């Protein structure tokens, strides 16, 4: 995992160069619609693209050790908890489309509590139910947010 920290600037620099090139390409595409070389929708994407490439290259070729961060990404149980929580959020986005707010929020909150707090299932269900009800009151009753109703349209 330490390798991640070692190549952090190289990775950051490469991403900057890549985004810079995309930005320059977009500027090139928009240039025919412009008034002149510095006036139009292409101007700032062009400038930013050039700067991203320049700063990206300078970061990429920077010598090791200059203000290098010595961070390592988590491993084992911590990595599992982190990844599982993020994946669960993405799954929540899909579930809410198909099953609506109530069912999806209840399921996701119970799993999140079980995963993060490591409570017993019974406690997780109770707390998850409470969270779902309170957030229902806030977002649906008070804020009137039109969440997808999904297959449980009666809820």
């Amino acid at each position, binding site marked *: 995992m330490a390798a991640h920290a070692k190549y952090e600037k190289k990775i950051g620099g490469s991403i900057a160069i890549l985004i810079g090139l995309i930005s320059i390409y977009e500027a090139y595409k928009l240039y025919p619609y412009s008034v002149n070389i510095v*006036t139009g929708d292409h101007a700032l994407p062009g400038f930013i693209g050039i700067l*991203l490439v320049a700063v990206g290259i300078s970061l990429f070729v920077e010598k090791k050790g200059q203000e290098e961060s010595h961070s390592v990404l988590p491993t084992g149980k*911590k990595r599992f908890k982190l990844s599982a929580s993020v994946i669960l959020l993405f799954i929540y986005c899909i579930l809410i489309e198909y099953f609506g707010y109530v069912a999806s929020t209840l399921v996701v909150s119970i799993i999140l509590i079980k995963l993060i707090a490591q409570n017993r299932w019974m406690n997780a269900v109770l707390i998850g139910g409470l969270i779902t009800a309170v957030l229902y009151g806030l977002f649906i009753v008070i804020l009137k947010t039109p969440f997808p109703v999904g297959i449980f349209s009666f809820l």
Partner: protein
Amino acid sequence: METIMYLWGGLSEVITPSNLFIVLLGSLLGTLVGVLPGLGPTSAIAVLLPVTTILEPAQGLMMMAGIYYGSMYGGSTTAILMNIPGESSSVPTTLDGYPLAKMGRAGSALGIAAIGSFSAGIIGLLGLVLFAPFLADQALKFGPPEYFTLMLIALLVLFNLTGYSLRKSILMGLFGFFVSLVGIGMTTGMPRFNFGFSFLTGGFDMVSIIIGLFAITEVLKGLEEDRTARKRVKIKRVYPTKKDLQQSKNAILRGSLLGFFLGILPGISATITSFLSYDLEKKLSKQPEKFGKGAIEGVAGPESANNATSSGGFIPLLSLGIPASPPLAVLLAALMIYGLTPGPLLFEQNSQMVWMVIASMFLGNIFLLVLNLPLVGLWAKLTEVPFGILAPIILLVSVLGAYSVRNSMFDVTVAIIFGILGYLFHKFHWPIIPFVLCTVLGPKIESSFIQSMGMSSGNLFIFVERPISLAILLLAVVFLVISIFLMKRTKKRLMQETGEKMEFS
């Protein structure tokens, strides 16, 4: 005199039961979120912003201002009781606040922090009332080239303030600009960077990005650190003694004035002023050896300086439309959501609303002082909420909040992705502040640039040929030199006190 009349007019409109309730609710909600360990003012405003959208614009903004002040106050509670500085600007508060709490004087420290925050808040607001309309009046002389120079220079100076490598700061600022460019082009109406996807045509929603970078990231950081509810120190006495007040009054005054006057200068952040205030108090003290072991002046000075700088930040925000810190960048986004354009015209076009919001800030500060001292015990209890319960709540509120702004699942995905990115940025010391500021200011900078180029028929020298623009550039050089000096000093002090690099707030 005219200003006082406007303020009086604003005050008379705020004093209605519903408006007073909104200000009170905002202050309490802000404190509630602010005391939760790990959640600072920016996350508090970002998470609660969608909740305010059902209100009238004036009420929504009054609530946001209350949330801002409340969360700032809440942050000092965790710093004193649990030795957790929510942001780097709270580090000096922990140096003496926590030892005081361990000595059984947590109530005194919290009380003095509340009084210091109140005094600083009021001094900052008086400065806002006096300076903001004057500055806005002057800024009416600004044309697009002056605005472009001002915003660009302000950003450059702020990049220097992150506490991390300048090159990384610039790169993060450029990434922020890049993100702000996604959507419909300003002059042609052509979609930019949409890569054929319709969901990218509307651009990225600012609130989703901020929710991701501040709220979701904070949970991910907490999961990695395996945060468990830390034992807080018991509070024996809520109110500070006469002796505490006597010892702190000069420190509060000095901290407030130093924080405000240095804070209104571009390039001086709350972290810098709070450390300067701490060092100043130590230098002026007859017993400097007490600092770090529980000196009440060590809490009073930095807390006041921190709050005065934050209040001072409202001056460039309201009069020029330039946010000096991430929470103010979120407030700028909030103003835009409510259809307001911060800048000199704000005082002309929405004068009634602006003065109402400013008047509400005075009341918000009074509410915080009056209510928070007796509620200290309750806030302290909240710091014991287990992270295992808190984290799922924050994650779900973030997802639902991101959705509720534009009723779009794409925004939720954006929030989650930026949450992951924010975690990685934090992990590898890539500063988030330049990214946020550039994302918010990107469209304004672009419109000023395009208008300037239109005025000069594409002549880039317009930025140095106009006297005001040139003066801004020259002043910027001076501020940049001062800020580099102060930033290096603060970076060293932060390293001495915490042993780690932290992003400045």
